[in-house]
Structure formats: C-alpha cells, structure tokens
C-alpha cells in the first residue's frame, strides 16, 4: 500500500524534480511528512509563500525545467497567487501544489479553506482539484506536460488532506499523456514559412523583435544564427533580454517606453518586423494597433491567441521558435541586407550613445551595472526587480552568455530576491546577483533569512534613493510633481539589518567604492548585501 503523499513525492521524483520551494501548514502536512526522510528532493523553506512561487520561477528560468512550489490551504494558497500570476504573465513553467481541507469538508468554509482553483482561474494555464488518490499520478503527469509544453505556464494542483493520507494498492507513473483538448502546434506551417521567407527577401528594412519566447524555447542560438546569416538587426523586449549578447554588432537593445532610443527609432523606420515569441504589450509598443499600418509584420509564436491580438499581422506563424527558426535558416539562402539600411542602423546606434550625468557623493547606478557585467563570470545570472532598478539593468547590463531574470510581463515588486534563490538552487556554480531598489528590497527582505539558512551565495545590490523612484518619475511627468506616498524616509539601516540576518553588508556612496566592493565580493562564496546610495533625481532613462 502507498499513501497519496508518498505518491506525490514519487511523481515529483519521476519528473526529475530535485528542489521544491514551500511553506508547510496543516493540510499539506502529509506531503511534508513524506518529504522528511524518504526522498532526495531538497525542500527550501521560504519565509512567505509568494516567494516560494517566485523562487520556483527563478529556478525554472535558470534551468529550463518546471519549478515547483508548495503551500498549505487557505492563506498559504492565497499568498501564492501573486507568484502564480507572475509566472503566468511571464510564461514560466511552474507546478504549484496546495493542500486543501478534507474532501468531506469542502465548501463548508472551515478553518483555512479557500477556493484556490477558483481564485487562480485567470492566472493558471490549468488547475486540478484532486477528487481521488488514484488520480494523482495521471494529474501530475498531465500537469508537468501542460506546464512545460506549448506556451509554458503555471499549473495548480490542489489536494485535500485526506487524499494525501489515503492509501492505494500501488503506484505507477504513466508514460504518456492523453488530453483531448491540448495538442500544441509546434511545427510551423510550411506555406506560412515560405510566405515569410518571400516577405523577408522582398523587404528593404527588416528588423527582428525577439521576446521571452525565444529564450523559453531554447532557440537563442538559432535566432543569432539567423540574424548573422541575414544581417538583420535585432531588438528585444524586456523578457527577451539575453537573446543576443548585449555587445553583438547586430543588437540594438530593448525597445519600448523605457527602452533604447536607437531601438525604437529603428522600429519606426523598419518596413518589416519579424516578431519572435513576443506579445508586444503596451510597454513594448505603446500603440501596437498602429504598428501594422506602417510596417509589415511576421509574427512567430507558439500561442495562436497572441497572433493578431496586439499587432496587425501580415504573415502569422504558429509554432515552436526552434522549429520555425530552423526552417527559416534553411530557406533564407542568398539573402543580403540592403546596405543603406545597414548603414542607417549603425548610424542610429552611434547617434544615441548614452551620455550619463552623475551626482557627486552618490553611486551612478547605470555605470555601476555596466561595469558589474564584466566583473561577473560570463554566464552570470542577474535578477532585477521592478522599478527604476529594472530599467537601469535592462538598458545597461552587458549580458554575454548568462541570463537576465526579471518580471517583464507582470512587473511584480519583490521578485528579484526570491527569484535569485531559485536561480541559485538551479545553477549552483553560476554567479547570481540581485539588483533591486530600496522599495522592492523591502517587499521580500524576509528572504535574507532563507539565504542565510541555506548559505546561498547571492550578492544583493540595493540601489537606495529613499524613493519609489519609478512612481515618483510618473508623478513628476503626469501628476505635477505631487509626490504622493513615494518617499521612503526613515528607512532601517540595511547594513545592520543584513548583519542581523548573519549576512555581511556594506554601504557605499561612490562608484569607485562600489566597484571595489563588487570586485571583492564576487570572489567570496558567501552572500553579501551592498547598499548603494543613489541620488533621487537619477532618471530611469536618459
């Protein structure tokens, strides 16, 4: 005989899960009891459930396997929601496991009962409220399949406590999945690919806009190859940062309201935009409905619902970026880019070289982030939070072979520290660095405790300007400078705070000092919190 809880552990093992992030409670106790001594799965105890979901997201993005987070029923489950919603908007494969009250008590509003599958309906790719212990293997198999195939996303499995305790005859993990209504189209329609090739060949000023889909499908190198073969310049969305090394001659940077002028300007001048794995939300293209009027659009995405949603499309291609890129590469022979366009793009890049003004007695964050890029190993993972720090990182981190993890879709403050915990668990030998603001840091600084408990080598750089800088900028621009609720005065001493958690820390007020510290701390195998004083008037973009 085998219990539901033991089956849950065996299912995770069968899926190759080595780490889960979670927080226990009464209704998930049977599962935690099974985790206690009969598995090699490592459990990372976070300090609030939301961070378990963010950590699972960081883990998934760093190693391209679904991340797993676990919480109890009621408040544990509802705390997960923001993390699940973040993974949904960012298209991150994730399995969220929640305990639920006993099945005979369901619907009676008993202690710590919440309709979590109902509450998560808009934020999950799919969800299960388990009805029988016997269903667990099939449900886990399906959940992992759904989370990682097609457009990745979070899947929730809600399991009543008694079904975790019930015992059944035997455990067998299914080998195949059969879901009638779920068969993602990955190949890309050949006729459409031919049309796309013809369109590219007849275009004079083509441009590639690469999004997170290129990274999640693992098609980064193919996209680079395609760009290099054709010499078509590449922009990326926030989620697409890392599709090309930042210093690649064909890469123009991030587009959008907070992107590079050279990138936006090139987009404006293009006669063909090849959109790869991007949904082009309002922050990427402020008026996406107008884009198709000026330029032709080839839109490649695994999710048919993204095509034609925000941008008018000339040639739609539904498929996995790997397959589509492979076919494009095979068929694009003999294409050479118009030399005039090539020149123009190079001019744009040179014309908009950034001039950064500095404030004496403060750290200039953009220069520091740019320098930091080369002090880290080339495969470093940078986790940026949300706010000005995110824009500083997006535009100035010189990525090479590493990853840039931020929540470009949902924009959830407090993401960076827990995401870094997940990334570090997935990639122990890589440099993992957090850049956050003093606002976002305080949304998840309880996780310093998790970092200390597990001695995770994560360096945290807090850009402190005593402001909620991004909102403050908005208030300057749109609300006549009325700084309503964006001043963070009387903050705690972050250095003392980090030390109270047992993590070494220092405060700096110039780039020279900051760089000196960075040079030292990247050599150490211990976590560190570097607090950088930043002038409140340092803008997000130039």
């Amino acid at each position, binding site marked *: 005989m085998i219990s539901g809880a033991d089956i849950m552990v065996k299912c995770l093992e069968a899926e190759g899960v080595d780490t889960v992030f979670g927080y226990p409670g009464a209704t998930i106790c049977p599962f935690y009891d099974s985790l206690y001594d009969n598995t090699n799965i490592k459990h990372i105890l976070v300090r609030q459930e939301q961070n378990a979901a963010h950590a699972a997201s960081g883990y998934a993005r760093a190693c391209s396997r679904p991340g797993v987070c676990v919480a109890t029923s009621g408040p544990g489950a509802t705390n997960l929601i923001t993390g699940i919603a973040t993974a949904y908007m960012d298209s991150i494969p994730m399995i969220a496991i929640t305990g639920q009250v006993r099945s005979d008590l369901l619907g009676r509003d008993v202690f710590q009962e919440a309709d979590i599958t109902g509450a998560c309906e808009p934020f999950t790719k799919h969800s299960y409220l388990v009805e029988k212990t016997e269903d667990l293997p099939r449900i886990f198999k399906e959940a992992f399949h759904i989370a990682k195939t097609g457009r990745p996303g979070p899947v929730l499995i809600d399991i009543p406590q008694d079904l975790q305790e019930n015992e059944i005859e035997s455990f067998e993990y299914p080998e195949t999945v059969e879901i009638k*209504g779920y068969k993602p189209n990955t190949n890309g329609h050949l006729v459409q690919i031919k049309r796309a090739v013809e369109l590219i060949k007849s275009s004079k000023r083509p441009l590639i806009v690469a999004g997170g889909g290129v990274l999640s499908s693992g098609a980064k190198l193919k996209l680079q190859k395609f760009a290099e073969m054709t010499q078509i310049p590449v922009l990326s969305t926030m989620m697409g940062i890392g599709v090309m090394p930042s210093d690649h001659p064909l890469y123009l940077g991030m587009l959008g309201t907070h992107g590079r002028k050279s990138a936006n300007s090139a987009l404006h001048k293009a006669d063909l935009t090849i959109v790869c794995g991007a949904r082009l939300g309002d922050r990427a293209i402020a008026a996406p409905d107008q884009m198709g009027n000026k330029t032709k659009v080839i839109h490649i995405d695994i999710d048919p619902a993204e095509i*034609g949603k925000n941008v008018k499309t000339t040639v739609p291609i539904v498929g996995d970026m790997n397959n589509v890129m492979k076919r494009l590469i095979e068929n694009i022979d003999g294409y050479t880019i118009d030399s005039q366009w090539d020149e123009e793009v190079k001019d744009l890049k040179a014309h908009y070289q950034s001039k950064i003004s500095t404030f004496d007695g403060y750290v200039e964050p953009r220069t520091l982030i740019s320098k930091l890029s080369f002090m880290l190993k080339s495969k470093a993972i940078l986790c940026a939070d949300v706010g000005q720090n995110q824009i500083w990182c997006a535009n100035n981190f010189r990525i090479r072979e590493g990853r840039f993890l931020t929540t470009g879709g949902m924009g959830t403050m407090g993401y960076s520290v827990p995401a870094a915990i997940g990334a570090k668990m997935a990639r122990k030998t890589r440099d993992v660095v957090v850049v956050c603001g003093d606002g976002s840091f305080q949304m998840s600084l309880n996780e310093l405790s998790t970092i200390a408990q597990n001695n995770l080598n994560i360096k945290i750089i807090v850009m402190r300007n005593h402001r909620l800088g991004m909102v403050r900028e908005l208030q300057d621009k749109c609300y006549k400078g009325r700084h309503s609720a964006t001043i963070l005065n009387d903050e705690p001493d972050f250095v003392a705070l980090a030390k109270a958690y047992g993590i070494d820390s220092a405060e700096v007020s110039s780039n020279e000092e900051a760089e000196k510290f960075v040079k030292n701390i990247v050599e150490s195998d211990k976590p560190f919190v570097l607090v950088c004083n930043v002038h409140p008037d340092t803008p997000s973009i130039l």
Partner: protein
Amino acid sequence: MKYTLSILVENQAGVLSKISGLFSRRSYNIDSLAVGVTTDPTVSRITVVANGDEYVVEQLEKQLNKLIPVIKVKRLIEGEFISRELSLIKVHSSSTKRFELLKIAELMNAKIVDVAASTVTFEYCETAEKTQILIDLLKPYGIREIVRTGTVAIDKGKAEVTA
C-alpha cells in the same frame, strides 16, 4: 454582430465556470449559453450566442481553444445552421382575452401548455428571432414570467462538429 459558437468540452467539473469566466474576464457579452452532453458521455457541447466584432470573435475562439478542457471550437456560419430555443412564457389572461391568446398561439405555431383562471402559459420552440416576435405579440397582455433555455444549434446537412 451576433455569432454562434459550438464548443465541445470534456465533461468534467468546473468547465462551465472556466468558459463563462473567460467571457466576463475579457468583457465579451454573452446573449445565451446552453450546455448538454453529446453522444460521447465524456464530452459536452456548449452553444454560445454572443455579440462582438470580428476581432472579438477571433480572440474569443483562440482564448477558448487555450483552455485545456476545450476540445473544439467552431463558429457556425450564418445561414448554414439550424438554431432553436425553448421558451416557457406565462401571460396574464382574463377570460375575455383567452381567445385572442389562443389565436396568437395558433398563428405563431406555439403550444399552450397550461391554462389557469388568470394565466396562460405558452411553450415555444423556435429561433431566438421568432421567439422575440412572439414575446412582442404577448407583451400587451402582460407577461408574468419567461423562462428560456438559450439557443442550441446544429450544422445543416453533412457538416458536423466532432471531437
């Protein structure tokens, strides 16, 4: 623009809420929605009549297709399908008006299924448009209550929606 979608779904708990939730979340308006099991007991069919422009319908079809328990979505083509809706309409009727109401029933091919001292109840199985005509005819007499099933629809001829 009015359109009719025929949706095949897995017959499991929560599917209806997923579908109706999708409509409300993306602020698409539903005129009617009807559910019933198909020849395969594991599969249900949902017929939705909704309003919206071409962009909305296309998005709706795609978003419905993204739901895991949705097996197939088909937009039925105007003029190429049969649609019916069952309505029960209770009308106020004094003895002097009863004869007129019987005449209306005869004219519209509706059935009278209940007669009481002060009411007459009509049963009507027709398209939503014809049902509206009957309702308009009955309004002056004082409609007490209407119960409608929502439209169900099926392709004409050989065409079909199958899993």
